[in-house]
């Protein structure tokens, strides 16, 4: 994971399919799949612009802290899950093999048991898919690294205001 990750479209389609099924069966509001460092991989449902990135970053922090807490009491399950129950919306987090995080946001009237059941099934399906991630790499044919580097320099100047 430290060496970077390139996600081909075909894998993302399979992930989207699994997440869409989970969303339908568990009546979720939105779902984010992130990597353990807090980068967004896939989103299901509607979220405001920028929200998935923040959700993923905070969830990664949460999962990391919970993993450390678990270690302190002698638990080292890389598939741990936990959830926060809110008044109107709740959040369910599932650590997938210590590499990915499934974040499910659902209305609080939805039974947590339902979410947990279908989330666990989704995780079982996601596991082999996520394992393929680091084996399949490669840039798209029209990717131009030199142009990219030059473009970044120009964009940096445009990104910051005086």
């Amino acid at each position, binding site marked *: *994971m*430290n*060496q*970077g*990750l*390139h*996600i*081909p*479209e075909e894998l*993302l*389609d399979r992930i989207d399919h699994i997440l869409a099924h989970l969303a339908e069966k568990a009546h979720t509001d939105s779902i984010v799949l992130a*990597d*353990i*460092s*807090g*980068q*967004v*991989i896939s989103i299901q449902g509607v979220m405001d612009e*920028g929200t998935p*990135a*923040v959700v993923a*970053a*905070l969830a*990664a*922090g949460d999962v*990391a*802290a919970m993993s*450390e807490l678990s270690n302190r009491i002698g638990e080292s399950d890389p598939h741990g899950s936990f959830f926060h129950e809110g008044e109107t919306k709740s959040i369910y987090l599932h650590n997938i093999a210590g590499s990915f995080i499934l974040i499910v946001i659902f209305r609080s009237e939805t039974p947590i048991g339902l979410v947990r059941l279908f989330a666990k099934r989704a995780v079982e399906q996601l596991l082999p898919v996520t394992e393929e991630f680091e084996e399949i*790499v*490669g*840039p*798209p044919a*029209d*990717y*131009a*690294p*030199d*142009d*990219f*580097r030059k*473009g*970044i*320099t120009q*964009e*940096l100047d*445009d*990104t*910051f*205001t005086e």
Partner: protein
Amino acid sequence: MFINWKLREINLKIVYYGPSLSGKTSSLQYIHQRTRPDRRGELISLKTREDRTLYFDYMQFEMGEISGLKPRFNIYTVPGQVYYRGTRKLVLKGVDGIVFVADSQIRRLNENIAAINDLFEDLEELGFKPDEVPLILQCNKRDLPEIMPVLALKESLGLNGVPTFESVAVDGAGVLDGLKNIISQVVTKARGKIYSSPA
């Protein structure tokens, strides 16, 4: 680094690391303030009641599409206090570039040295080769009296070959220069990685 071919995005993670009260959060606040509103996300701070960073500060900004990919930068700070070392290591997961924010005051030298040692140990424990991770040194608080000369600070930290920037984070001087340099290093490295990947 994260390239999402479907969304045509390249995600990069930069971490501001350093001892407590060296100016990491101030740097991020300045970057957020100076980033075009249509290109930046919210600035998220997980703070203690005393307004100190508890877990991390975080912001994301993006750029226009370049060569078919939209770059997104995820910028984090870590809490500087000694007892939050575990947290600092967690935030370093998946890092692409590091800005080490040193406190230039002579009396803070030992804290700076302890923090740089922690950084290299954390990187090793996370499976990185520390000397291969893009790094810059941001010598902060250059406006204060009784500060170390930049060269002496660099040498004391063992960062002789590392690009170095003087800054006053509270008013932003030097902060963006450092950020631009680390982004340039990260992108250059990403280019090498992409070329070296099997097709």
